[in-house]
């Protein structure tokens, strides 16, 4: 196993040497966490995480189970406000403004950061159509023409339109798992978020659906910034531009994906990626 990954590593090095890595200077910063810590009671979920998230890039968060990658992701759209004993320290800058500043309404923040969960979460009693516009209804958009347009656009974006265009009135619960997940993505995209947070979006899906979602991520990054938590290192390598490696609640390494998977700066990253632990 170790031998195998060494070989593939060598191959990758050759490839990346010919590739030109975009220097971060050309990129604009969409989101940035600064010394972000999440505490459950008195224990740390994640501690002092500082990561830049670049606009229209895919950033993958990887690491073994329980390392805090999901905890970190949920801190980015203030989902921890819903957990009673969770406390967040530090700051998260969205377009330069701290979302944890006093007087900032988490509801407004969550409208700017769409989220897709591990399990597909369409509202089962709502029709496919109503599922897609659920977020728009919340902001009070009722114009049928706009809604129709958004539904088609979002479903096309999520690569689901062709499959469901003839049955938009059927319940969201009637779709297959992979379709439901793409519906969840369409719903998150409908409100035109600045950032799309994906928490292991393919872990409950079959390989075929996984491939479709990964293709989708490739397409989506032209228009939206994506942060994806994944257990699957190959997936991180396939879809992301940047990768953050978490271990035991701390950030071990943040780097471009191509560098991370070939010549990581940190010994522990290398050990994890080559399967020595985790």
């Amino acid at each position, binding site marked *: 196993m170790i031998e195998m990954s060494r070989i593939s590593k060598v191959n990758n090095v050759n490839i990346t040497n010919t590739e030109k890595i975009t220097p971060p200077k050309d990129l604009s910063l969409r989101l940035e966490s600064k010394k972000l810590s999440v505490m459950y009671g008195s224990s740390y979920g994640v501690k002092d995480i500082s990561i830049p998230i670049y606009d229209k890039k895919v950033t993958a968060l990887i690491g073994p189970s329980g390392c805090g990658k999901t905890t970190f992701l949920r801190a980015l759209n203030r989902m921890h406000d819903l957990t009673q004993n969770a406390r967040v320290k530090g700051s998260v800058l969205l377009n330069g403004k701290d979302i944890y500043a006093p007087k900032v309404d988490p509801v407004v923040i969550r409208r700017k950061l769409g*989220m897709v969960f591990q399990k597909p979460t369409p509202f089962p009693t709502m029709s496919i159509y109503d599922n897609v516009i659920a977020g728009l209804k919340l902001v009070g958009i009722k114009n049928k023409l706009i809604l129709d347009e958004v539904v088609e656009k979002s479903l096309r974006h999520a690569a689901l339109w062709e499959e469901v265009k003839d049955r938009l009135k059927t319940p969201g619960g009637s779709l297959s798992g992979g379709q439901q997940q793409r519906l969840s993505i369409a719903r998150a995209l409908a409100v035109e978020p600045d950032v799309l947070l994906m928490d292991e979006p393919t872990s409950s899906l079959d390989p075929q659906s996984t491939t479709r979602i990964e293709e989708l991520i490739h397409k989506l990054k032209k228009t939206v910034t994506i942060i994806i938590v994944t257990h699957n290192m190959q997936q991180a390598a396939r879809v992301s531009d940047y990768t953050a490696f978490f271990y035991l609640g701390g950030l071990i390494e943040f780097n471009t994906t191509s560098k991370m998977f070939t010549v990581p700066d940190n010994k522990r990253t290398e050990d994890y990626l080559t399967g020595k632990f985790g």
Partner: protein
Amino acid sequence: MKKRETDGSVLKEPNVKYQTSQTTLSEYLRKKRSFIYRTLGDRLFSYFIFALGFIVILTTIVMAIVLYKDGAEAIKRYGFFGFLFGRVWDPAMKIEFGAFPFIVGTLITSIGSLAISFVPALAVAIFTAEYSPRWLAHIIDNLTNLIAAIPSVIIGLWGIFVFAPWMRDTFYMNIYMWILDNNPSFAPIFGNPIGYGIATATIILAIMIVPYTTVLTVDAFKKVPKEQREAAYALGATKWEVVKMAVIPYARGGILAGVMLSFGRAIGETMAVAMLIGNKNNLPFSIIGPASTMPSVIVNEFREAVENIHLSSLIAVGFYLFIISLVVNLIAAYIQRKFSLTGARTV
């Protein structure tokens, strides 16, 4: 020794002991199969459970048969539907019986109480399940359940001595006077402000069924997956929007179950209603005036029924009540199965 055999750590050690113990263990498992898997006990237990379950079903069927047999005299004399839609109930002069006034009374009080109690019960459920801190939710839950634990005769007493006089003095009297001043022709429809009547009984009934709707609704709310709530929050929903968008639709099966259970309870409630409804046996009923329901007429007249046909008619009323309850329950089960997403059908 036996414990060591099944211990995984011992089995991993490659020594001679492992070989022998493995043989004896597999021999043991092969030989005494019936003893190990207790097939005899299993079979006996399943017979036992089947017998118990069968007795429950049998009891229901026997009950229906007995009710029909004892009420047969009345049903035969007036006809199955004739008795059901007979508008006269006169045990004193004409000796003629028809169940229609009681069916009307039962439907008005139970549907009315359901209409009154539904929104408050849902509100209590939403508050305890979604809004209140846990300690407060605990207190409210217990108090709500306490309402269900109060014997209905006690609620009836409270109704007679406290609630009905209060309603009469505060509302009925004033409204009645206002009607007499402004629109006297409406007075007979409104009814006499004596305090005991269909409105008072319906309100008391509403209070009594609140816990049934609330408890099942709270249960259903608790079964809504965390992911559904978070999905709504992540779209930028406020707390109320989350309840509206994710919680209530998902829990609708359980809510409906609560409503139907409450309805069944309201149809069958006897004592409190009999004490408060004023017991008028003939149509038309007025809004606050006296009326009767199927259970209330049975409990009120059972001891005074001297003629056979009177007694038989009362039992026939019981038979129809039985059928209506059964139908309500079947409809409830059907609705639940159709709308349930949370598996609330087991409730």
